[in-house]
C-alpha cells in the first residue's frame, strides 16, 4: 500500500494543546503565574501583618527593602540564567563574589580609589569566569565539576588574601552606593533593574543570546550549523563571572566591608531562583523576566519570615521545600510536553 520509507515510523504530528499550553506564549503564562504568586504572598502579608502590609507608606518602604535584598542575588541569578540556558551550571558564583569583594577591598587596591576598586572587582569576576569557561570548553570538563573546583579554590583564595579578616571599606564613594537613593529608589535596585534590562536585550535581541539558546537547546545542531561551541561556552561563563563582579561591588557596599564569607550559598539561591523562573536545567529554555520574578518570589518569602520574626532555620527549611517543589513542577511540565511521542520511535 504505502511505501514505507524507513524502519522508523514517521513522528506523530498529533499536538496536545489546550488553553493552558500554547506554543509561543508559554513563558509569558508562566511569568504571569509568578506575578500571581507574588500577589498571593502580599495577601498573606496583609493577613498576618496588616500593620505593615495595609499601611501604604510602610508597605512601600518594606518592598524597597525586599528589592534591595534581591538586588545582588538578582544580578548573580541573571548570569546564572545565561549559563543554564546554554546547558551548563555555575556553582562558583558565591565564591567568585567573595573573591572579587576581598580583592577589591585590600589595602593596596583601596589606595587607588573607588574606580580601581570597582574595576578590580569586575576584572576578578570576569577573569575567574573565563577560567571556568576554559576548563569547560577547552578542558572538556563537566560544568558541575569544573565550577565545583573553582568554587572551593576561589573561597580559599579569598580567605588567604583577606587573612580571614573583614576588610573595612574606607573609601566613602563605595559605601555611598548602598546609601544613595535617587528619586527615592535605592541605587542597588536601579543597578539590578539596569542589568536585567541589558540582559533581556542580550538574550532576546542579539546574536549572543540566540547562540546561547541554540547551544543549550541542541549543541550538536548548533555545531553543525557552524556555531563555534567552545568560544560561546567560554563567553557565557565569562558573563556569569562579570555578574559576580558587579554583585561583589553591591554586597561590599552594603556591608561596608569585603569578606571571604560574602555570597555564602548564593549559588544555591541563584539556581533555585532561575528554576522557579522557568529556566530548564537541561538547557535551551529560560527567560530573564522569569529569573527576576523568581528572585523576587524568594526574597518576598524571606521577608515574610522576617516580619513574622521566625528563626532562620525555618527559612532554610522553606527554601529547600520551595526548590524541590519548583523542580518537580518543571519535570511534570516537561513530561507533559513529551508525552505525545510517536510509538516506539
Amino acid at each position, binding site marked *: 500500500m504505502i511505501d514505507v520509507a524507513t*524502519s522508523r515510523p*514517521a513522528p506523530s*504530528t498529533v499536538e496536545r494543546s489546550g488553553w493552558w499550553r500554547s*506554543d509561543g506564549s508559554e513563558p509569558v503564562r508562566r511569568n504571569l503565574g509568578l506575578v500571581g504568586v507574588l500577589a498571593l504572598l502580599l495577601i498573606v502579608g496583609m493577613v498576618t501583618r496588616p500593620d505593615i502590609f495595609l499601611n501604604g507608606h510602610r508597605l512601600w518602604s518594606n518592598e524597597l527593602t525586599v528589592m534591595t535584598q534581591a538586588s545582588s542575588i538578582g544580578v548573580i541569578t541573571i548570569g546564572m540564567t545565561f549559563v543554564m540556558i546554554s546547558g551548563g551550571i555555575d556553582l562558583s558564583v558565591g565564591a567568585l563574589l567573595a573573591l572579587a569583594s576581598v580583592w577589591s577591598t585590600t589595602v593596596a587596591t583601596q589606595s587607588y580609589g573607588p574606580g580601581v576598586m570597582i574595576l578590580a572587582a569586575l576584572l576578578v569576576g570576569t577573569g575567574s569566569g573565563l577560567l571556568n569557561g576554559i576548563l569547560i570548553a577547552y578542558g572538556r570538563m563537566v560544568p558541575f565539576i569544573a565550577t565545583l573546583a573553582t568554587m572551593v579554590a576561589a573561597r580559599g583564595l579569598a580567605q588567604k588574601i583577606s587573612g580571614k579578616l573583614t576588610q573595612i571599606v574606607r573609601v566613602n564613594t563605595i559605601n555611598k552606593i548602598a546609601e544613595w537613593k535617587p528619586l527615592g529608589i535605592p541605587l542597588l535596585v536601579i543597578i539590578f533593574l539596569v542589568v536585567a534590562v541589558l540582559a533581556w536585550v542580550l538574550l532576546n535581541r542579539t*546574536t549572543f543570546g540566540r547562540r546561547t539558546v*541554540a547551544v543549550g537547546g541542541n549543541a550538536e545542531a548548533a555545531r553543525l550549523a557552524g556555531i563555534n561551541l567552545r568560544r560561546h561556552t567560554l563567553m557565557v561563563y565569562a558573563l556569569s563571572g562579570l555578574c559576580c563582579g558587579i554583585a561583589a561591588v553591591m554586597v561590599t557596599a552594603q556591608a561596608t566591608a569585603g569578606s571571604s564569607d560574602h555570597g555564602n550559598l548564593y549559588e544555591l539561591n541563584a539556581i533555585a531562583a532561575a528554576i522557579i523562573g522557568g529556566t530548564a536545567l537541561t538547557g*535551551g*529554555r529560560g527567560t530573564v523576566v522569569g529569573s527576576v520574578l523568581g528572585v523576587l518570589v524568594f526574597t518576598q518569602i524571606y521577608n515574610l519570615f522576617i516580619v513574622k520574626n521566625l528563626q532562620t532555620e525555618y527559612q532554610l527549611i522553606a527554601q529547600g521545600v520551595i526548590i524541590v517543589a519548583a523542580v518537580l513542577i518543571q519535570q511534570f511540565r516537561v513530561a507533559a510536553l513529551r508525552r505525545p511521542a510517536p510509538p516506539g520511535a
Partner: protein
Amino acid sequence: MSSGVGATEPLLRLTGVVKTFPGVRALDGVDFEVTAGEVHCLLGQNGAGKSTLIKVLSGVHRPDAGEIVWSGEPVSFNSPQAAMRAGIATIYQELDLVDELTVAENVFLGHEHSSVGFVHRGPARRETRQILARLGHPEIPVGRVVGKLPAAGKQIVSMGRALSRQARLLIMDEPSAVLAHDEVANLFRVIRELTSGGMAVIYISHRLEEIRQIGDRVTVLKDGRTSAANLPARTTPTRELVGKMTGRSIEYVFPARTAAPPVAATSGGARPAGPGDGVPGPAGTNTPLLEVDGLTRHGEFADVSLTVHSGEIVGIAGLVGSGRSELLETVYGARKAHAGRVLVGGRPLRPGSVSAAVRAGVGMAPEERKSQALLMGEPIYRNVTLATFARLARVGFTDAGRERAEASRVTASLQLAPADVRRQVRTLSGGNQQKVVVGRWLLGGTRLLLLDEPTRGVDVGARAELYGVVRRLADEGVGVLLVSSEVPEVLGLSDRVLVMREGRLIHEAAAADLDEHTVLDLVMAGSLQASEELP
C-alpha cells in the same frame, strides 16, 4: 531444511500481521513461520519492515491486526518481558548489556538467583560457566566486567542470557555487523550448536554470502509485505532474491533530470554550461565545485576521492556502517580527517572546522534530524536561520522581522504546510521538519549541499516534494552530494552514483547506466556477479 510446510508444526507462525504508525503502514500483512531447529533468514531493503517485525515478535510493538501462533497457541505479547517469558529472546544490534557488571551478572540480569533480596553469586557463576561451555566459549571469565570484552565476547554473553532464560527462539539483528571475519565463523559455529539442540533462530543480515552459509530458509520482505516465503537459503539464485527485494509497488516520483546531460562517469569531465549556471565559482568551470582527494579516517573509510560539479547531484549508495555518513561529516568538517583533503571551488577547506565549511558555502542536512539538526522547542524561522542569523543581524543585534521574512520566503518555496513560521518545529510532521533542515541552506548562498538520508521518516508526498526541491537547487547551480540507504532514491535522484562498501568507493557510474539490481549487488556483495547472470 524442511520444505514441506505442515509436515512439522512450526514453532512460530504469523499470518497477516499489520502494524501502522502515524503516516506509515510499516507492516502490511506479513506471513512468516519458523520451525524448531532451523535458521530462518529475513531479507529486505531498508524500510521493508524487518525491524518492525522483530519488535512485534519481541513484544515491543503490538500488531494492529493479524495472528501470531507460538508453539500451537495464539498469543499476544504486551511487553518485552512477556515475549521473554514465552521463550523469545532478541539480540539487538546495539547489545543491551551493562558494561559495568560482570559476565555472570549480565547473564542473570533481571532473574538473579536470590533470597530475600540477597544475590547468590555462586549458583549464577556456576550456571554461567555451564552456559558458556555450551556455547563453546568456556574461556570467557564469568567474573570479568563485560565492558572489557571484545564485541564478539559480548555477543556470546547476550546469547548466554537467552539460554539462561530457556529461550526457544533467538532473534539476531545483523549480528555480524560488529564482528571481524574470523569471529563471524565462530558465531556460525555457535548458532549451529544451538539449532542442533532444537532452538530456532531468526537471522537478519544484508550480506547474502552469510545467508547462504548459515541459513536454512529465507523469507523476503518488501514494503511491509512478505514477497517470498520459505525459499531454500543455499540454492535460491541471487538474482531471484534480489528480484524479490526490489520491484516496487509504488513508483518513486522523481523529477526529470536536467535537459543538459549530466557529467559522465569519467571524473574530471566538465559539465556543459546549463541553464542557471551562473553560480559563484571559478570561471572556466573546469574546476569541480567539490574535490575530495584521498580522504581517510582510520576505521571509518579510506582513500576516498570524488568530485561534485556545480549543478550536479552525486549519490553515494552503501549500507549502514559502510562509512558513508562519516565521509559526509568529514567533508563538512564535523569530523577531522586523518589524511587527504577537501577542496571547495578549488580552495582547500580547513580540516575539522564546520564554520570554515559553512563560510565556503557548504551546507549539510545530517542523518539524525532531531538530535543533529533541529531545536525542537524553537520556532520554525529560528531553525531556518540557525546558520545565517548572524549574517542577517546588524552589529550583533538580531533582526527577527527580517529573519521571519527570509524564512517565510524559504518555507513558501518548499511548500511547507503551516504558513506561520513562528510555530514550534516540534509540531511539524517528519517531512516538514526535513524541509526546515534543507531550507536552512537555501539562505546565505549555499553552493554545495550535503544530504544524509534526506527522506528518512518522510511520507510519500513530502518525499516527492523534497526530490523536486533538490533537483531545482541543482538546476540553479548548487552541487549536491547525497547519501541514502535506499537504492531507488540514489538512482532516481542522482546524475552520477558512487557505491561505497566497507569504507571504500568501489564503483562509479552515471545513474542512467545503473539499475537497482546492480547497485544492490555491489552494495551487498561487492561484485557485479548477479547482474552478469541477467540476460
